């Protein structure tokens, strides 16, 4: 399958990319790893007139401790997140979740920024950043702003990012030794999650349980109020609107969310 023809620019800096975005607006698409964008272009479900290739911008690829947070460049590939010593020590949930994305070839190309900007509710990393209570940093010629992850996802494939903005950084709190777990339920290796549950430090992020990644707030509140893991996990599907498709009915997904939350909380508690 061959995409519709497009023009191609490879700016040598973030500023160059921002200038191109400002000039071309919604006719242009930024391409990072291309592992969500190129497949939809090959299916001709998307046909941008201009591709702005940011895959070689090394200034967007880093993982570093910054105060009480870890800052991750938006262009950092899943394989780097997966193996980062900084993340292993400071935010092991993120490294553990990155390890479950696709397969090694996909992880060698796909980026954390692309995964968040694409905002597929079935993706793993958005729910992990949500469970961590992170922030995304967006830049445009108008300036730089930080958006809490709780306000970033606005719907299926849609976010609070404006068309002239580039996602430049993801910031997550240093959770260090706090218990964490990721339960990703699939039928086959290499599949997307039918449901996924990310737990860290008493917070719970849900994959594929609604239009956006969600926090299991009823579970979190019950835990904070001293409820047992079993009782808190039984509330994990409250307030969710899971999709229904070949992989499972809504009811099946609700059941999975409760069971996987119990497992993840148990693992995170060291059980």
């Amino acid at each position, binding site marked *: 399958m061959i995409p519709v*023809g497009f023009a191609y620019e490879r700016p040598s800096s973030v500023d160059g990319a921002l200038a191109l975005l400002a000039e071309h607006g919604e006719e242009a698409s930024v391409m990072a790893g291309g592992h969500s964008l190129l497949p939809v272009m090959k299916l001709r479900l998307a046909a941008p007139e201009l591709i702005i290739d940011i895959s070689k911008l090394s200034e967007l690829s880093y993982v570093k401790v910054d105060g009480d947070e870890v800052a991750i460049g938006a262009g950092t590939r899943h394989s780097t997140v997966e193996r980062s010593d900084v993340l292993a020590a400071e935010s092991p949930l993120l490294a553990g979740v990155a390890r479950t994305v696709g397969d*090694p*070839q996909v992880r060698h*190309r796909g980026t954390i920024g692309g995964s968040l900007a694409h905002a597929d509710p079935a993706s793993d990393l958005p729910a992990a950043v949500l469970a961590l209570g992170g922030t995304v940093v967006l830049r445009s010629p108008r300036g730089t702003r930080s958006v809490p992850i709780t306000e970033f996802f606005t719907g299926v494939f849609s976010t609070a990012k404006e068309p002239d903005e580039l996602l430049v950084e993801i910031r997550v709190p240093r959770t260090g030794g*706090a218990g964490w777990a990721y339960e*990703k*339920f*699939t039928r086959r*290796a290499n599949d997307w999650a039918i449901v996924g549950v990310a737990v860290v430090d008493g917070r719970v992020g849900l994959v594929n349980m609604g239009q956006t990644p969600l926090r299991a707030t009823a579970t979190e509140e019950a835990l904070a109020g001293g409820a047992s893991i079993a009782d808190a996990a039984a509330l994990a599907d409250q307030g969710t609107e899971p999709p229904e498709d070949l992989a499972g009915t809504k009811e099946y997904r609700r059941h999975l969310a409760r069971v996987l939350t119990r497992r993840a909380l148990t693992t995170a508690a060291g059980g």
Partner: protein
Amino acid sequence: MTVKVEITVNGESTSADVEPRLLLAHYLRDQLGLKDTNVGCDTTSCGACTVLLDGESIKSCTVLAVQADQQSVTTMEGLSTDSDNLHPVPAAFRAEHGLQCGFCTPGMVMAAVSLLEENPKPTEKQVREGLEGNLCRCTGYHNIVRAVLAASGQDPDKAEGSEPDMVAPGFSTGSGA
């Protein structure tokens, strides 16, 4: 619109004016005539098109040739000098009968080279997980896994039972604390 690309392929510089939409797989097969790299699913699922980009496995049906500009690509053709001097990975595939029809083989071999680069002594489970992006329509996985273990210098019969130190990512990951 065409864009000039310069890609080092199997150690040799190549260059062409290409349409930005040209896939790396087609650059290798059609522009350079390197037909070891197969296109199977064309949807990033089967891994038949796997090559190394700067030493790391990628699926060349999902990378634009322009994105590989100024980088280096290794295909199966670039591994061995000739059929009497096979690179250790294809040599092990031959010795362990790690192929049947052979369609998935170049992709499997390139994925295995990348896997062993990152993890020179993998357990049997790590080999299976490391190859999860590659499908064998002949379902010859057993001998493929043995071949990769053998290529890593391990005795596949002994490594078979080695203790898995990772839970299958498809189902669960470990925990911290």
